[in-house]
């Protein structure tokens, strides 16, 4: 049976410290099949692909290519064996031509002319339409992607992996891509298609493996399944909300009024007339795949972007705190008002990895005049470590020594110790183990019950269903209307994450924003 499979992964496991990114994963890819790998962010898809591509070694498990066991030490091995991968982020030199870029990555036996010839043949055969002599800086995003695909195809791969390829394409370009993929599959190459877009997978793929929290939750034929079944495998059923005190309605403490920030380039995040209300004593959740504007929203609210004059000039709309417009206030002023942010990047933004926990308290405190009070920092760090059960040897431990979960507990504790009126959190439990995640969510609820207003941006629907009172969805810079937790279902939110709620004109705008950059 194994001999009939192009690529077979058996009981593959990979851990990063405490985090089990891949847990005994079986993946069977038939020859000539277009096989989807479906899962939310954090499900383990990219780790799995890195294992297939040779960037990482599995801790356990075996990989078989056409029946023979293989163990690749590096991507060069994998490529030589016939695995090609097209990444989401392209590795192209803008000042060189297409042929030169591809030629640089080939081994020395290819001449530039041979590469250009081969590219011409490829583009005709697969309908890729890429001019080998064009300079990359003139190409649109879709065309650059085609260059990357051509680069992969030159090696005549047996397995081609595409990582979220349509995230940068307009619908028309996506159709052209699908045509190419079907041709490729007919010739016997297997295609692994990574995506979270259900309609695409059902249109294109004949096989699908669904990942959740590092495990395989199912292997199905997507053409036989509907959206609910696929969602259920991908997201699971909605968990019950955690216990919380009943919430009394009060007027919002933070209001965004039609805030728009146009992007500078096609890949940049943008905000399109975002309006929201955040009231004290509530947790407002923002769902959505990363990159749809959530990061920009958090940075704008925290005050970190106020010093970017060009961006502030582009910004339209207002941010109100207690009915006062605060767009022009910086981080320090907003903290004095009681607004505190906990960003998603723990090392390098929320903390300095090379400094101790005590020194890292300095990033959130505002007490020091001109003298640095080391004792006071030490004591505050000690208090946080105690109160939030942070596993650290002492407040003198470096931030980089702590595990992800403990560091996040420390960062949360540091923010909560300031007793903020408004807490803005992004990905509060990303990469954090189950126990610490539960603790962090309890802390957020406790803060909510004490009357603070909390904004939680999270890719994990589970989390939002557990702790949010109302949920918005963000897509292409647009913010959906809020849904009360009681009225929200996984299917609804899952669909909204794909942008189905956008009115026709907005949807057209969102598409045309990508169309501009598509030739």
């Amino acid at each position: 049976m194994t001999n009939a499979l192009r690529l077979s992964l058996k009981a593959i496991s990979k851990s990063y410290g405490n985090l089990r990114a891949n847990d005994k994963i079986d993946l069977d890819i038939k020859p000539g099949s277009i096989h989807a790998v479906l899962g939310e962010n954090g499900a383990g898809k990219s780790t799995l692909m890195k294992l297939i591509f040779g960037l990482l070694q599995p801790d356990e498990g075996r990989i078989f290519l056409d029946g023979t066991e293989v163990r690749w030490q590096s991507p060069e091995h994998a490529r030589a064996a016939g695995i090609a991968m097209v990444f989401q982020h392209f590795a192209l030199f803008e000042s060189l031509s297409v042929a030169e870029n591809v030629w640089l990555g080939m081994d020395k036996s290819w001449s530039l002319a041979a590469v250009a010839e081969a590219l011409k043949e490829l583009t005709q055969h697969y309908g890729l339409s890429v001019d080998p002599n064009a300079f990359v800086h003139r190409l649109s995003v879709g065309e650059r992607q085609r260059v990357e695909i051509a680069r992969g195809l030159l090696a005549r791969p047996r397995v081609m992996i595409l990582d979220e390829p349509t995230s940068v394409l307009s619908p028309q370009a996506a159709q052209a891509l699908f045509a190419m993929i079907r041709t490729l599959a007919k010739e016997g190459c297997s295609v692994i298609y990574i995506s979270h877009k259900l309609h695409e997978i059902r249109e294109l793929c004949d096989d699908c493996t669904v990942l959740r929290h590092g495990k395989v939750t199912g292997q199905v034929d997507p053409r036989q399944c509907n959206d609910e079944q696929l969602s259920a495998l991908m997201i699971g059923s909605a968990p019950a909300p955690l216990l919380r005190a009943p919430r009394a309605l009060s007027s919002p403490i933070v209001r965004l009024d039609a805030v728009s920030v146009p992007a500078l380039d096609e890949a940049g995040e943008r905000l399109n007339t975002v309006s929201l209300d955040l009231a004290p004593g509530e947790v407002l959740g923002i769902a959505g795949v990363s990159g749809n504007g959530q990061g920009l929203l958090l940075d704008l609210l925290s005050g970190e972007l106020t010093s970017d004059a060009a961006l502030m000039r582009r910004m339209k709309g207002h941010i109100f705190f207690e009915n006062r417009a605060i767009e022009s206030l910086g981080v320090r002023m907003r903290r004095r008002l009681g607004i505190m942010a906990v960003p998603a990047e723990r090392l390098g933004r929320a903390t300095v990895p090379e400094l101790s926990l005590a020194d890292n308290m300095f990033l959130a405190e505002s007490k020091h005049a001109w003298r640095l009070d080391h004792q006071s920092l030490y004591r505050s760090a000690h208090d946080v470590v105690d109160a939030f059960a942070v596993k650290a040897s002492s407040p003198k431990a470096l931030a980089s020594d702590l595990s992800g979960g403990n560091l996040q507990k420390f960062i949360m504790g540091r923010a909560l110790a300031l007793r903020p009126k408004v807490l803005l959190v992004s990905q509060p439990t990303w990469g954090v183990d189950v126990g610490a995640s539960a603790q962090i969510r309890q802390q957020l609820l406790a803060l909510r019950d004490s009357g603070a207003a909390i904004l939680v941006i999270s890719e994990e629907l589970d989390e939002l269903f557990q702790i949010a009172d109302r949920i918005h969805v963000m897509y292409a810079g647009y913010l959906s209307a809020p849904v009360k937790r009681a009225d929200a279902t996984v299917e609804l939110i899952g669909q909204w994450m794909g942008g189905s709620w956008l009115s026709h004109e907005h949807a057209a705008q969102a598409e045309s924003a990508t169309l501009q950059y598509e030739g």
Partner: protein
Amino acid sequence: MIVLEKRQHPSLWMGYLSPLLSIALTFVVAAMVVSAMGKDPLRVLSLFTLEPLNGKRAIGEVMLKATPLILCSLGLAFCFRSNVWNIGAEGQFLLGAIGAGGMAMWLTETGLTEPGWLWVTQALLLGALAGAAWAAITAWLRDRAHANEILVSLMLVYVANLLLSYLVFGPWKDPKGWNFPQTLRFADSLSIGRLGAGMRVHWGFVVALISAGAMVWLMYFTALGARLRVGGLAPGAARFAGFSSRESLWTVLLCSGAFAGLAGAMEVLGPMGQLTPHVSTGYGFTAIIVAFVARLHPLACVLASFLLSIMMIGGELAQSRVGLPASVSSMFQGVLLMMLLTFDSLIQYRIKWRGRPSKELAKHA
């Protein structure tokens, strides 16, 4: 083939070994080069290490040369720690010399030479101010126009050099100086007090040591220093904390310019006693090497200044006693910096031997 692989944790050992290994290997390279030139390597090495410390007067010379290095490197370490790459300390040094020298010249001409210590202090402060003003140009251009401070500060060095040449060849030239490009000699009272009879080293050395202490206090015991250190270690974290990058840019550049300017002023009011085109023997650039050898720590800057001072004097001795060319000194400084950067990379990375992919693939075929 040899591959550099990132370590899980930076190596503590290499952090300490790197400067020591670099110094040791620099001497090895020096010995090899020197013997290739037909000179006795051991003699040259002793000229570079032992001779400069031979006797009270010699040690005084080492301290004298270390003084501007300490001051300049303190300022540069301050800048580099904040990711502001001030390469123009040499220019700021020259402006300090011009400022103090100009004032001393005017005082001497107008006869306002007493009390000496008061005028000297004022001239030194003027020199510091001039250096800071020169650095302010770089800060302003980076602040307003996002100009790269490496390029601007470096180019301003050439401007400063030309300014000094213009002054000593032109309006400030001593009419009684037989047409040599130099100003008149400043009045005797307008020189910094010596630390001992027959020695050239002066109170500026003490000021330099005190400055090192002040830097330690500033960097590790003030909130400003903490903000600057965070800004250098993780700019994203500094933004998150609301620290102003503008504040750090101006603070470190003005401070560094002032230190370099003060060093230049001390050179002119100390051993030189007049302004000439050769006021600096590249102190501003050597100080960059000092700052890196010291791993940007203020107290280590003092030690590294002594090391480089000894190397500079050793170079001069090697020239005069053994006939090595003048560039030998800068060559060894360059080798030292290169070795240091190479060994420093081993703190974050380790060397591994990996077989070639085609060979390994054959195993799997």
